[in-house]
């Protein structure tokens, strides 16, 4: 079995029913982002208190990589300040998937980060 296949199996095991999946009722921010070239679509829900992300969830119509990446991303930013969340780098997510911006799944992995930035940039300006 190839290592790529092993990695896929591991992803399936952990993210077939991804943690953090679901809606937040009365969310403070909802942000949707889609990648039309591949058809992935994610929707992020945030509860914000002061300058901090209290709770974050997502729904999606997306591939395994995108779902896994979103699930992981939300774990990483929960409890963080808006600034901290915005400072998260693409590379941090990509390295979890053992890939970089040249990898075939780059766009899938990065999609939730785009949604996150879209949601939080406005807040930071306020």
């Amino acid at each position: 079995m190839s290592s790529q296949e092993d990695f896929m199996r591991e992803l399936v095991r952990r993210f077939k029913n991804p943690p953090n999946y679901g809606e937040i009722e009365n969310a403070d921010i909802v942000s949707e982002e889609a990648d039309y070239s591949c058809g992935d679509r994610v929707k992020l829900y945030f509860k914000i208190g002061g300058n901090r992300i209290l709770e974050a969830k997502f729904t999606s119509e997306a591939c395994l990589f995108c779902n896994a990446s979103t699930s992981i991303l939300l774990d990483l930013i929960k409890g963080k300040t808006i600034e901290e969340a915005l400072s998260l780098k693409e590379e941090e997510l990509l390295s979890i998937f053992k890939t970089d911006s040249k990898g075939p799944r780059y766009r899938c992995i990065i999609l939730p980060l785009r949604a996150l930035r879209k949601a939080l940039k406005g807040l930071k300006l306020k």
Partner: protein
Amino acid sequence: MGFDPYVIREDFPILKKEINGKSLVYFDNAATTQKPKQVVEAIRDYYFNYNSNVLRSINTLSSQATELYIESRKKIARFIGAGEEEIVFTKNATEGLNSLTEIIPKLLGRKLTVLTSIMEHHSNLLPWRRMVSEKGGRLIVVGMNEDYTVNVEEIEKNLENGCDVLTIVHVSNVLGTMNPVKELCKLAHKHGSLFVIDAAQSIPHIPFDVSEIEPDFVAFSGHKMLGPTGIGVLYVRKKFVEKIEPWDLGGGMVKTVTLEDQVYEDVPFRFEAGTPNVEGVIGLATAVDYLSRIGVSNIAKHEADLVKHLMEGFDEKIITVHGPLDSTKHMGIVSFNVKGIHPHDVAQMLDADGIMVRSGALCAEPLVNALGVNAVVRVSFYLYNTLEEVDRFHESLRKLRGFI
């Protein structure tokens, strides 16, 4: 000599490549095809022995290059049953279709009502939509029948109400289904409309003859038929060749220029401003030679065998094939979804086994959405694919059961 994909494969060095430790299986031919040695060699020979600017200089090298260029145009025209003055070189099908949104409004001198379908590649939808929003007119998009071809009755109704252009994809790059272009062409002409064919997925795979179909314009790409990238063709029916205005101006397309005026070159050269893609034209002519030698109808038959084998091997409990269940209706192209697994993940699993397919919305998002999904997996064949490769594909797909 009978048709033998294993003999053909010897002409395609890339097919010996290994990917992820497995020998390459290339099932993404609707995106672009591989190139035989003959095509690459012809381009090399051109650069090493004939390179110079064509149609311009009075020197031996330039006349030799020009002769190659003119000969190549003849071959390419003959391949689709056209006259050499009826084909204009473009960079791809997309460019040809975009040019039509400049050419036809000028030719007809009015705002256009354009009829197209939900089955189109984005390149036969977006240019027309922009034309209508910039120049006025109307774009009507007709639907699909249960057999996954365009709704001819709906088309006829709209044609009766008065349309200027009917523009339809011949073979769908998502479903592989074939639209009845000859019938559509008759209908369009009967109702005074022009008829345009997006033949990007048909000319490479099935016999295609403009003198039999009689369309007004046809666009296709060289890279999808063993040719190099960057070369395509826009076919213009003879009766319009002298009537349409050049859309790009510059060198190579004029006979004389004064500070006040100019006289354009003869057709089709007046439509090809600037130094042309000589290597592309020579490469495409060589590809056309190759395809003619094998016989496009033999290729179509071979692809039909592959599609049949592919579809028979699908486990319908987990695979949903889009389009007709009858394998003979898929011209070398089959799109499907695997229950519970996203198309990208299916593609990646296949990739791990060296099998290249396409996944996503395939540049035809309205059609893919009409199928009730936002992405699909697509397998698309060509002359060098084998039944054994299809078996390998199924073997790899079976592993996905563990993921569901």
